[in-house]
């Protein structure tokens, strides 16, 4: 069976030339960049050339790029590093309720350690209102962290508007741009952000490598201690093959970026348009226009997300869902609930994240098989065409979920 991958928001297949570059580096460029001999010098040169390539993708200076192990570490370093270095000024952080757990759980950790966190609400599209940021700021605020593109529903936040507000207030602004970088234009100067997280494996680079952009002049402290790597900000021998692979992925991302964005967006739009037209009781989650190029997220009423995923997988299609079963907890996605979706609707969410290698044929195949899957599950669902006059003995309190059974 042909396998179709619509889960690029989770991870992407490493580009072949990236893989070859990484392999070559592992075999022939194995020196420690801190060593003074020729092996070390060769590795150092590669790391610094890679830094230039990553900087080029973001329109940053090479000195503003710090390599990390990925998005989670970049978020941790940004948030903990800024709060540690600036706590004399205050203990207040502003973020949103729809952030990735790498940001949310880091903020919750800081709350337990004496910091105050404001979690800004979002509208029905999952969008933060910049005016809410302005109102939440006080003279103790040291950091605002709002993601660029939401990993679940794809909504793009008004980063530029928020950055203008934080800049005026003299407060640092970090954005988790893990879903955006490499998949759409991201220009740190144009956005006006102070810190930005990115991850290699979200745009055809290797896993275990990422970077944090830190604008020159930003006061930040290390959270990982050891040798003086990454200009004393991130101790640990550099992941040289990963860094070289990330840089190659950045170079590839830059090639024909507008064309690639347009192509993926067009496939996404076809998917959204057709689903909304052909299936009843379905809604698009996230903003109708301001969304990540590859992200489509639907809620199919009366059916549950994991059942949709299993059925799609049987048809060879890989996707994801925000249902409780797939979120690894008893509650469905915090993002969907923050947007005001009921638990029922959130349980029936399906996320399809398209990437560069997806074709229109693949999208058509999905559009062909999804209606019958939804119909079949609905035929099985007691919520669909529910006969309310039935005399049924019900046990609604679900002690299995909310008690210790």
């Amino acid at each position, binding site marked *: 069976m042909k396998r179709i991958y619509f889960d690029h928001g989770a991870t992407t297949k490493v580009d072949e030339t990236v893989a070859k570059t990484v392999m070559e580096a592992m075999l022939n460029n194995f020196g420690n960049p801190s060593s003074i001999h020729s092996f070390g010098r060769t590795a150092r040169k590669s790391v610094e050339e890679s830094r230039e390539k990553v900087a080029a993708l973001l329109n940053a200076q090479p000195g503003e790029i710090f390599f990390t192990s990925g998005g989670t570490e970049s978020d941790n370093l940004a948030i903990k590093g800024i709060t540690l270095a600036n706590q004399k000024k205050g203990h207040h952080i502003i973020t949103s309720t729809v952030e990735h757990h790498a940001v949310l759980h880091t903020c919750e950790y800081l709350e337990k350690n004496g910091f105050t966190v404001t979690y800004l609400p979002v509208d029905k599209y999952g969008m933060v209102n910049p005016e809410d940021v302005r109102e939440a700021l006080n003279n103790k605020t040291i950091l605002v962290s709002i993601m660029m593109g939401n990993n679940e529903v794809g909504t793009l936040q008004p980063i530029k508007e928020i950055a203008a507000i934080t800049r005026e207030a003299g407060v640092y602004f970090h954005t988790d741009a893990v879903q955006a970088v490499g998949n759409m234009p991201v220009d740190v100067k144009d956005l006006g952000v102070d810190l930005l997280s990115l991850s290699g494996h979200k745009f055809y680079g290797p896993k275990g490598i990422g970077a944090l952009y830190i604008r020159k002049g930003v006061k930040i402290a290390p959270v990982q201690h050891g040798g003086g790597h990454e200009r004393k900000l991130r101790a640990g021998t550099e992941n040289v093959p990963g860094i070289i692979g990330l840089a190659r992925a950045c170079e590839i991302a830059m090639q024909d970026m507008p064309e690639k964005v347009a192509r993926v967006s067009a496939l996404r739009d076809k998917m959204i348009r057709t689903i909304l037209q052909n299936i009843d009781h379905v809604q698009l989650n996230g903003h109708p226009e301001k969304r990540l190029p590859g992200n489509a997220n639907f809620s199919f009423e009366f*059916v549950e997300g994991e059942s949709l995923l299993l059925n799609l997988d049987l048809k060879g299609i890989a996707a994801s869902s925000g249902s409780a*079963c797939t979120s690894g907890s008893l509650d469905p996605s915090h993002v969907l609930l923050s947007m005001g979706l009921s*638990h029922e609707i959130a349980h029936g969410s399906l996320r399809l994240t398209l990437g560069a290698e997806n074709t229109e044929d693949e999208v058509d195949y999905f559009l062909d098989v999804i209606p019958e899957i939804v119909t079949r599950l609905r035929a099985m669902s*007691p919520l669909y065409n529910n006969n309310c006059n039935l005399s049924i003995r*019900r046990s609604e309190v*679900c002690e299995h979920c909310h008690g210790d059974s």
Partner: protein
Amino acid sequence: MYTEKVMDHFTNPRNVGEISDADGIGEVGNAKCGDIMRIYLKVSDAGIIEDVKFKTFGCGAAIATSSMVTEMVKGKSLKEALDISNKAVAEALGGLPPAKMHCSNLAADALHEAIKDYIEKHGETK
């Protein structure tokens, strides 16, 4: 993550549907939790479950356990049916992932609700 048997019952669920003149109907769970299971029973005068159907909103485990319990209970007496536990249903499926044991393994509970509904409507079993 699911056994072959779970996937078999998920892809080819047995006894899906409703019984329009059911003698007992039971439902457990709620949509908030992401699982609702409803069981319909047709019971003979001798107290034997002659027909059983289910409707379920839920994940793979919820659908598979619903299907399994209907298969286990058909032809059984109400007393035998009351002895079927959620655990026994999971075992009949070759096990469930640990995370599913508590949240989606409710099919026997739905069956028991349907039997209680029958008893309420028809009096004690013979």
